[in-house]
């Protein structure tokens, strides 16, 4: 039987290699454009069209293919142009017109337009590679290896790059040795809790039952995280392969991928990948002639954060309200429809296929003693190089945020004065929020913490599934905590009293503080209530909901105190505690940029022709701050409001004319 499996797979592989060769090694050029959701929303589809138009009009021998996301979302839309005689070159920040002139210059004049290039993606003597920059060199790609380099909608590309080899190895090894292999790799669940994957598998394998289920948890509800989405859209077969291996190891024949409704492209990509896998015989009945069956269905979530919790997720698949239930019984004993069920996160399952293909020892040589392998983060917020990063465990947060992420970006303020250039205003790093609404805000002093499940928990945050949102000096710690509580309070399913009512009270207290109506006793109350909610809640939504409050209170207590004692928001974010003011000494009589920007006509001209703000009408939208030419920099925010200087009277002779 083993021979048959290997023979069949060899056939598939040679077919796949042929297909890939036809795409890549032909006479002509290949242009691969990243068209995952992030690329699309940055305009990648228009860029694809533009490439196709120019190729057709010039009659060049070139193909345009649509690949997934490279993870370098800050430079989207991106494309790799492989022209015979040149190394493949990666271009970023493309627009339809740039795409056109790039092709014209490259193909007519042999000029690769290097000012738009990020670098070559292969070693060569002509053009520096992207791997020389820290954004690339510090990364270690296991999970994201294929992202952006293969066509996700073509199974042959996946097979040709080593895909489904892990499955073949597993089928040759047998279930118990497969689990042994995962054990050797040291893989831990990447959904957030970090439970050892092999243990989960072994427990499920040892439970007797003729019907078991595998569930891939792709309900990435954590706002600010998009790792799972990228993998689903860019490398869907790695997940399918991981699920088949898991099914084989624990003895299950059917599986579900539970994807958020908010990810329409991911849903369609995984759906078409499943049907391709069936066509090739790596999924479905009698996989590769081994006699093993496995089928996968896609299930769409309807938008409930709590459904990321495994028991809630199963209730949702069963068509019920997604409410968690007490454990035990654990899903391994009694899961979906009462059957033994194994639930793993997208990243864990995708890594399983890689580990089995490339070897457990190679994987376990990366990372630290406690946490093997790599961690994937989705960096967003106030950071220069947003996107996905994959780094070995043990790297410090500082290296990730500053060396790879490039730190906090300046605010660029354009000027409407003729001949003046935009001015960059430097902003300093304040905190990093990891683990989403269940995680915490860590200040600069903790950035040297090495990344590992245990070390992150010690700081009060959690590793979570990998969302990393960076805050700068303009973000208020109290407001951030309030935002997360608003989220968890909304998403609490309502089953446990402490979570349902407790989070509401936490939110009310925080809202009061951000409005300047807090008292010092509130701070102790917040801590006490937080501890109670942690103890009194069934699932991790409630157990971790207070984390953002506890960490901000621990590391940014002085901000809470400023809000309460002085009615002052040090970061000038909380609307009720700030006022906008035009400094007369800086305001220029001839300029009325702010007047036109105000949506509520709150800015008026004073008798001395300078501008001033009518606080009654001001809605604090900050348009005037942005409109004021940075060379004048006259509009400022003042907190507390009591420090606002008295306003100058309006020039009534101008009323009705000032906007013209």
């Amino acid at each position: 039987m083993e021979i048959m499996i290997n023979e069949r797979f060899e056939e598939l592989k040679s077919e796949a290699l042929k297909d890939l060769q036809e795409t890549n090694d032909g006479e002509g050029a290949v242009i691969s454009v990243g068209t995952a959701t992030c690329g699309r929303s940055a305009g990648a589809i228009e860029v694809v069209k533009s490439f196709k138009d120019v190729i057709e009009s010039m009659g060049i021998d070139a193909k345009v293919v649509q690949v997934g996301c490279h993870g370098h979302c800050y430079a989207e839309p991106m494309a790799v142009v492989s022209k015979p005689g040149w190394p493949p070159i990666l271009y970023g920040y493309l627009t339809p017109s740039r795409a056109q002139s790039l092709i014209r210059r490259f193909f007519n004049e042999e000029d690769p337009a290097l000012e738009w290039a990020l670098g070559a993606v292969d070693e060569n003597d002509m053009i520096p590679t992207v791997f020389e920059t820290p954004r690339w060199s510090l990364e270690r790609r296991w999970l994201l290896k294929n992202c952006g380099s293969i066509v996700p909608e073509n199974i042959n590309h996946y097979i040709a790059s080593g895909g489904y080899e892990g499955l073949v190895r597993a089928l040759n090894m047998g279930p118990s040795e497969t689990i042994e292999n995962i054990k050797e790799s040291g893989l831990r669940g990447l959904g957030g809790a970090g439970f050892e994957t092999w243990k989960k598998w072994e427990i499920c394998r040892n439970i007797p039952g003729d019907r078991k289920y595998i569930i891939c948890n792709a309900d990435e509800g954590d706002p600010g995280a998009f790792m799972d989405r990228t993998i689903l859209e860019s490398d869907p077969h790695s997940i399918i392969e991981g699920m088949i291996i898991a099914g084989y190891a624990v003895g299950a024949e059917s599986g579900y991928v539970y994807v958020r409704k908010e990810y329409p492209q991911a849903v369609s990509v995984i759906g078409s990948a499943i049907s391709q896998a069936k066509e090739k015989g790596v999924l479905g009945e009698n996989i590769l002639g081994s006699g093993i069956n496995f089928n996968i269905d896609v299930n769409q979530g309807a938008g409930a954060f709590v459904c990321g919790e495994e028991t809630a997720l199963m209730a949702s698949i069963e068509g019920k309200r997604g409410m968690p239930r007490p454990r035990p019984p654990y899903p391994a004993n009694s899961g979906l429809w009462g059957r033994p069920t194994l639930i793993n996160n997208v990243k864990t399952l995708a890594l399983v296929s890689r580990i089995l293909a490339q070897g457990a020892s190679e994987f376990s040589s990366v990372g630290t003693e406690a946490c093997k392998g790599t961690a994937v983060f989705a960096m967003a917020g106030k950071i220069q190089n947003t996107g996905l990063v994959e780094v070995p465990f043990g790297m410090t947060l500082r290296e990730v945020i500053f060396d790879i992420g490039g730190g906090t970006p300046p605010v660029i303020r354009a000027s409407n004065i003729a001949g003046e250039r935009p001015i960059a205003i430097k902003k300093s790093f304040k905190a990093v929020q990891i683990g989403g609404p269940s995680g915490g805000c860590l200040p600069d002093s903790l950035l040297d913490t090495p990344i590992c499940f245990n070390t992150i928990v010690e700081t009060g945050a959690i590793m979570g599934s990998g969302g990393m949102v960076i805050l700068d000096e303009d973000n208020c710690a109290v407001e951030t905590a309030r935002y997360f509580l608003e989220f968890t309070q909304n998403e609490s399913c309502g089953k446990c009293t402490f979570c349902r009512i407790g989070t509401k009270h936490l939110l009310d207290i925080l809202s009061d503080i951000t409005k300047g109506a807090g008292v010092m006793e509130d701070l102790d109350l917040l801590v006490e209530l937080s501890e109670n909610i942690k103890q009194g809640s069934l699932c991790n939504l409630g157990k971790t909901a207070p984390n953002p409050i506890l960490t901000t209170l621990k590391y940014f207590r002085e901000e809470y105190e400023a809000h309460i004692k002085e009615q002052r928001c040090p970061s000038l974010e909380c609307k009720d505690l700030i006022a906008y003011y035009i400094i007369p000494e800086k305001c220029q009589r001839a300029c009325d940029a702010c007047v036109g920007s105000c949506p509520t006509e709150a800015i008026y001209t004073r008798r001395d022709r300078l501008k001033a703000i009518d606080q009654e009408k001001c809605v604090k939208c900050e348009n005037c701050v942005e409109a004021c030419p940075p060379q004048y920099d006259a509009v400022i925010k003042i907190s507390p409001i009591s420090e606002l200087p008295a306003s100058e009277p309006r020039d009534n002779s101008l009323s009705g004319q000032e906007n013209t």
Partner: protein
Amino acid sequence: MNNDSAQECMEEREKIRKILEKWEGKKDLIAILLSIQDHIGYLPEDGMLDVAKYLNISESTVYGVATFYNHFRFIPPGKRHIQVCMGTACHVKRGGTVLESWERCLQIREGEVSEDREFSLERVNCVGCCVLAPVVVINDEVHGRMDSTKVDGFLLRYQLESEGKGNGSESDINEDEKGSGDGDND
């Protein structure tokens, strides 16, 4: 006008009947509700009753599930459904002021539909386009790097578009739709 809305209602129920036929006895409540919303844009009350009858479960179960999940809507969305993302990344990049700006310009609150049924406004948790924050999704099209000052531009474009259409024969249809919209609000 009332005839129009009655007609609309009949058409909706007919669509729901067709959707249910496709499920052929599969008892997947959430998937059925998702499919109805995809086709009709919201979950009409009658539709939920039909689903309960079809699945032979209580009406309260259907309503309980439908109201549990954020995705389901119970009022028809406007012609342009505006979803303002309120994920963490959008929040720290001042997505809140973008939402306020939409509310101010459209003169509706989040969760509401404008009187002429042209626009509806909704806040969503995260659409996963965090790198383009703040993000707004208008009829499934993602617009990144939003700004509160850009809202006026969007509205102007829509106004020009509908005025452009107004020259053709479609103006009558637009009028009719507006008419039935008012009728519903009465």
